[in-house]
Structure formats: C-alpha cells, structure tokens
C-alpha cells in the first residue's frame, strides 16, 4: 500500500476506534447513575 493513503487510513481509523472505545468506556462507567441526576430542564421551557 502507498505511504500517503496508508497514513491517512491509519490516522482516520485509529481516531474512530479510539473515540468509540472511549465512549463505550463512558457508557459502562455511567450505566447505573441515571437515577441520581438533578433536574436539568423544565418542560415549561418548551
């Protein structure tokens, strides 16, 4: 594979993989905390 496309592919795919793993880590960390949240907005505002 040529150098430029290889670099671009690696950077793009690496970034997507990294962000996806980070988001799943967040999902598993926060999974059971939904009930502890305070009121963030009121229905009347909309």
């Amino acid at each position, binding site marked *: *594979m*040529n150098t*430029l*496309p*290889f670099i*671009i*592919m690696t950077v*793009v*795919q690496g970034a*997507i*993989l990294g*962000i*996806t793993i980070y*988001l*799943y880590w*967040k*999902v598993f960390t*926060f999974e059971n*905390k*939904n*009930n502890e*949240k305070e009121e*963030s*907005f009121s*229905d009347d*505002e*909309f």
Partner: protein
Amino acid sequence: MAGGAVGLGNFLRFPIQAIQNGGGAFIIPYLVSFVLLGLPLTMIEWSTGKLGGLFGHHSPPMIMQKLGRRVHWRYIGSIGLFSSIIIASYYCFIESWIFSYMLHSLFGTFDGMTELQISDFFDRYLNLSISVSGIPYDTFLSFVFCLALNIYILSKGIAGGIERVAKICMPLLFIFGIFLVIKAFTLKAGEDGAIFDGTLGLNFLWTPQFDSLANPNVWLAAAGQVFFTLSLGMGAIQTYASYLKKEQDIALSSLTSAFTNEFTEVILGSSIIIPISIGYFGIDKVIELTQSGGFGLGFRTMPYLFEQWGTVFSTLAGVAFFGLLFFAGITSTLSIIQPTVAHLSKSFDWSQKKSSYITGSFVFFLALPCILFFDKGVFDEYDYWGGTMALFLFAMFEAIAFSWILGVDKGWKLITGYANITVPRFFKFVLKYITPTMLILIFISALVKPMNDDWSLISIHGWELDNNAIIAKLMHKGMDVNDSNIIYIDGARIYLLLLLITIWLTIYINIRVRKKRVQKHNESMMS
C-alpha cells in the same frame, strides 16, 4: 439504537457510493460530512425525539410541528415518513437477497463457479423470468417472506426480542468482519484467484483527491451516505428517542450510536468489499459494475472469495456472512418502518397490529416496481430520491427548525441536560451556524450545478446545467430521448409523488378529525 444503525449501509452501500464517487474523491467530503453534519444531526434527532415524547408525540410530523411551532411543519415532517417508507421498501428487497444468498451458500450453489459466473448469478437472480433455485419466482417469494417476517415482528411488538438477539449477532458480525478485513488486506495478485493486490482498492479509497471538494454532487452523495448510514432524515431515531424518559441521557447514547456505526463503516465496511472486488476485477471493471443496481457489489464478489477456502469453509463463511448481515438488516428495517407505524397508530388510533399490517401493505406495493423493473433503473431512482434527496431535505429542515426556530440555546439544553458526557461547546457553534448553512449550500449547489462544475463559466456562457444537477436529472438531461428506461424512471417518480401526496392526505385528515373532536368536546363542555 446502535443495532438499528449498523446495517446494510455500512457493508453494502458505503463501498458502492465510494466507488461511484471516485474513491479518494469521496472520502474527504464523507468524513467532513460526518463531523459537521452527521454528529450534530444525530444529536438533533435524539433530542427532538425526546422532546416530542415528553409531549406525547411519537411520529416525525408531530415532532417537527412541536419544533417548528406551526402546523405546516407537520407537512414538512412528512418527508421523514416519505423517506423511511421508500427506504423500507427497497431495504426489505435487499434483505431478501441476503436471505437467498445465505441459503445458496448453505446448499453449495456457488461451488466451482468462476468470478464472472458468480457476478452473472446476481443478474440472473434479479431477473424474475429466471429461477436460480428451481422454484418459480424465488426472488419475489424471498422478498414476500422477508417483508412478512418484519411485519410479523412489528405487529407482535417483539422488536425488543430481536434487539436482544442482535446484541449477540452484532459482536459476531464484528469479529467475522475483522477476519474478512485481514483477508482483504492480505489478498495478493495470483493467489486465491485474485488478479490484483487487495491494497490496490485501499489506495483507490484513501488517496485524497482535493479537486472533489468543489463538486456539490460528491458532497450530496457523501452527506446522503452519512444520513443513510446513521439512519438520519428518516424519523427512525426521533421515533426511538420519543420513548425515552426525561432523565435519560441522550448525549452519550447518540454519540456512541454514531461512532459504533462509523467503526463498522469506515474500519470494516471500507476494508472488505472495496479491496476484495478490486482485487478480483480491477478498478475499471468495478466502476462499471457499480454504475447501476446499487448495493450489488458484495453479492457479486464475496461468494467468490469464500469459494477459495474449500467446500466446508466456503459454506460456513457464506452462511455466517450473509446470516449475520441478515440480522443486522432486520434490526435496521424494524427501526425504519417504525415511524410510519407510529404515525398511523397515533393519527387514526389504530392498534400496533393494524398499523403494522397497513404499513406492510404500503411497503409491499411500493416495492413492486422496484422488484419488477430493477434493471430499468427504478431501484436507483428509489435510492436517489428516497435514500439521498429526501433524507437530505428532512435533515436540512430539521437543522433549521432546531437551531433557528426552537433556538440553539434551548436545543443545547435538551442535548446536554441529563447527559453522561460533556459535549464539546464547539458543537453549539456548529449546530447554530455550520450545519444548517452547509446543508442549504450543498442543496442549492447540487440543485443547479453548472456544466463540468465550472462555476466561473456561469457569467460568460450563461447557466448550462450539468447532467448530474438535480434539475437536470429531473429533465433527463444527458439521456437519449429514445432510451426505453425513461418511461420506467418517470413512472417511478410519479409513484413516489403519489406516495408523498397520500402521506399529506393522512396528515390533513388527522388535522380535520382532531379539530372536529376538539370542537365537539368544547360544545359538550358548553352545554
């Protein structure tokens, strides 16, 4: 929702779109569209869906009315139903191809076939006058089975059960996908029947071509692919999110769903069919194969790759690949059909069962021309108007309503309220200015794109439209007037227009019925 988003768009549509639009010419607009359009619109759809749900609205027209604050927004919201039902019709048809290919892999139909024979098999499969299995009208019967299966699942309200099965199938699809990526990367000319290295396809996709940045049609195709793959612009996400509770997070959920989809598409989807098909056929032949009959490339190439692994492994690989893809397809179809079911159910107070059957009938009759006249360009018309244009239009109106009518400050509250993650504030700016402006600019420039993309010529030679401009397409510019396909293409367009009018009619009737009900209620209160 990630189960619904991951589907045929990742593995089958993305490679075709990338090849049709020049490989490296497509990837930059695609990635930019994902960040500046896809991610913001994902957040918009999740938040507006949740907002609608808080006020008892579960279908795109009602949610859009809530957002736009005027009754005409309900008609604009119908574009979401229009796109979802068109996509459902041909998506279900593709699902039936996958189902049939799974059975053909199981029964060894592809054993001993050359790459050209396997490619031709796909054409014969789609020709209704030929039976590839010995059962008359097998292509049509397979479609009826798949549609019936989807409608049965929806009518019984067991989509949740399917989602649970998908949770097992999805990781298996990923694992098998990674295995295929390795095979594609290591495909060498002269080995396993390949005539080129698999990396030739990767070079084709990942070598950037910056001149494409000035081509609005590539932008339109790239944005269309982002919307299709993220299930944006079809009301599926809004309908799903409308059932969420107020205190449930949407920021983390929407971003996770979007990135799971991108992982599947950019890492797996881009690295399987493109290098494998180019390895077996070469770039020119693959471009020729993708000129019509979108989605077909995987069916023309993957069975041949599997055939190189011996009888037992080819059977296992074919059943695994098409079987897992079939499950991914079902979860997506269910989420695509659901907005129409919700619309009918809410508009006419019909049960889930009745709404599902009526939606199924709509999908059936809508899919008929697609199946009967596939080779006349009808399928591509459906994909262009329903799977690209309608998605784009709905997304554009949605972004305008969210950012400029509801107001980005309120919208930002919806996105970040109860969030399990901090959303970068950069997106607030993008939501307010970049996303709506970009959508409007791409749409207008694709509508009236000048000949050969040369905008400088406009002032000198007048405004000659390019053959790919939307208006030029409507007028069949560049087509031979004696082309026998024109009548089928026009017929398909009229059919789609009638569908849109029918949806508007259901909205109009619903508004009238509700007005009468309110009047009656008021009268009874007065008396």
